[in-house]
């Protein structure tokens, strides 16, 4: 095991800058998730860590070792590929043994590790089969097993669940979490799925256009997004954004837009806020009719219900606020009629305010 330290990593493909000045820290035994939309550079970053691509600048260290210029085989990593990349001409057993045999591990030790991994992953009945004889979920497990037997310093996962169906994905997600708790290997996991990111990570790195937009424990990042991009990326349904004005009124700051008037907390505004154009961000899960808010409300949102999606335990009301679309989560019991007016409240700590031009949260303003 080792901690992973990445400093100022740069990568270009021809004229295209894919990564610019990326810093990542993963503590020993930590689980870092790199998350972002396609093209944000997260897979490239993982390939740099693996040594499958060479960095144009910056450094990558595993513990005390500088691995920036090392070949993949010298880095002591194990990787689970999105395509699984099982060797088609080898049985499951030989797939698991492949890396160990290359490293001249003693036969008895190989046997022991295969037994251990196949117990962990339930691979026993599959050991004599070929990859083409396995289902998607089974292949995925073999790919995990091939990484586990290596007992490498760093585990890398490149969107390992994206080829599984939704039900299986949820199951394997939990399995990966359990495995990590059991093995405790330093892991770097790439995904575009925010649910995977939120549930697996003890630290997430939200990437956008080759930069780390924000990093931290997932719930912290969720609760306090530093930019509009991060706010929009985490959470489902996505945060509602409303163009608004920040006004100073009777000693208090108020954000106003047609049909909306809310008072953000002081910490959301940062030092020395200035009145003017802002973007207001409100998560569908944070708004509720005032009587159901359970907290002191910090303003009012007047919505017009257009469509109601009732899911049983909860409903999503697709509304308009002013002229803009707005989604609100409602408890299962409330069923506002289509076209009816809906009054919503929100707690001050859930009000997010972003600069209109830069998209940065007001507390995260530059300069």
């Amino acid at each position, binding site marked *: 095991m080792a901690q992973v330290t990445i400093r100022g990593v740069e990568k270009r493909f021809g004229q295209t800058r894919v990564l610019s000045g990326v810093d990542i820290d993963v503590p020993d035994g930590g689980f870092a998730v790199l998350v972002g939309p396609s093209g944000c550079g997260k897979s490239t970053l993982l390939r740099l860590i693996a040594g*499958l691509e060479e960095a144009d600048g910056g450094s990558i260290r595993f513990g005390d070792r500088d691995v920036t210029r090392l*070949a*993949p085989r010298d880095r002591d990593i194990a990787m689970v590929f999105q395509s699984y990349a*099982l*060797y*088609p001409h080898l049985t499951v057993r030989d797939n698991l043994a492949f*890396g160990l045999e290359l490293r001249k591990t003693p036969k008895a030790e190989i046997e022991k590790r295969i037994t251990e991994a196949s117990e962990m992953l339930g691979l026993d009945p599959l050991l004599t089969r070929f990859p*083409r004889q396995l289902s998607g979920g089974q*292949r995925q497990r073999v790919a995990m097993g091939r990484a586990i037997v290596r007992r490498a310093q760093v585990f890398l996962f490149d969107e390992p669940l994206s080829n599984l169906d939704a039900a299986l994905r949820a199951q394997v997600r939990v399995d990966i979490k359990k495995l990590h708790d059991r093995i405790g290997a330093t892991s770097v996991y790439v995904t575009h799925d925010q649910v995977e990111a939120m549930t697996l990570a003890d630290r997430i790195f939200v990437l956008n256009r080759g930069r780390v937009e924000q990093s931290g424990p997932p719930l912290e990042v969720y609760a306090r997004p530093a930019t509009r991009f991060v706010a929009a990326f985490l959470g489902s349904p996505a945060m509602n954004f409303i163009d608004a004005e920040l006004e100073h009124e009777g000693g208090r700051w108020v954000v106003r837009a047609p049909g909306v008037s809310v008072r953000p907390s002081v910490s959301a505004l940062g030092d020395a806020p200035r009145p003017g154009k802002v973007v207001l961000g409100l998560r569908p899960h944070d708004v509720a009719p005032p009587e159901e808010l359970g907290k002191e409300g910090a303003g009012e949102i007047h919505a017009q219900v257009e469509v109601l999606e009732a899911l049983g335990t909860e409903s999503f009301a697709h509304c308009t606020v002013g002229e803009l679309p707005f989604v609100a989560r409602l408890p299962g019991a409330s069923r506002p009629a289509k076209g009816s007016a809906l009054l919503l409240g929100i707690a001050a700590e859930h009000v997010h305010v972003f600069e209109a031009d830069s998209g940065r949260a007001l507390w995260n303003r530059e300069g």
Partner: protein
Amino acid sequence: MNERRVGWVESALSHLAIVVGVAFSLYPVLWVVSTALSAGSAPERRVLPIPRSLTLDHVHHFLSGPHVVSQAVSSLVVSVATALVGIAIALPAAYALSRFTFVGKEAGVRLLLATQMFPMVASAVPLYIVLETLGLLDTRTGLVVCYATTSVPFAIFQLRGAFDTIPKDLEEAAMVDGATRFGAFVRVVLPAARPAIAVTGLFAFMSAYNEFILAATILGKEEALTLPVVLQRFVGEHDAAWGAFAAGSILVSLPVMLLFYVVQKNLVAGLTAGGVKG
């Protein structure tokens, strides 16, 4: 009920088409067989290729040639060598073309393609001069070199296509697992490309085994002649031993048939299926 009848009609029609196709392609072959087994030296003019009187005389005639064994060996040596040399040179070249980008790659590929546009005969005279200069005239090595000039480019194209279909992930997984790039090539890419390699080798073997003009030009020693040249001698300008020629043709075809039989399992692609998501 209705559906079943449609299925029956469809099946009958497709079988009819197959029977016609098979008859069309087998008819000349059956004539060769008939000629080989009929007494007399010229084929008879009839519609159905059924021999009137069976005889093995023509087979004896062909096999009793003074150098027939060494000529058969010569043919096999030249063909196997052509296939091996072709594959050995083409494998690394095709891999490089499939996986790496380098200066002159596209130009090189176009040049390779250009060599495929000319018939082998067109280069017979220059090849003759080259071999003469190298002192390889009238040697099997010389003939293999000539055959390689066409088998190598063809094999490169074939194998490059095959490598293109093998996901890069497989090699990368092997490299992460501890292999060098060459190790990944040998341990993962080659096994995955085995069907394509077998087919490419088979084609190189066959083209060398069947080739006549260069073999007739370059080889002179009676005992080193390849079988197509030997066969041709049975139908000379003045007398034509069609029976022996036909019998020889069948015997000469046997190794290729045997090879096809052995390799057919590899002709069915799909070994890579399942390695990555399917």
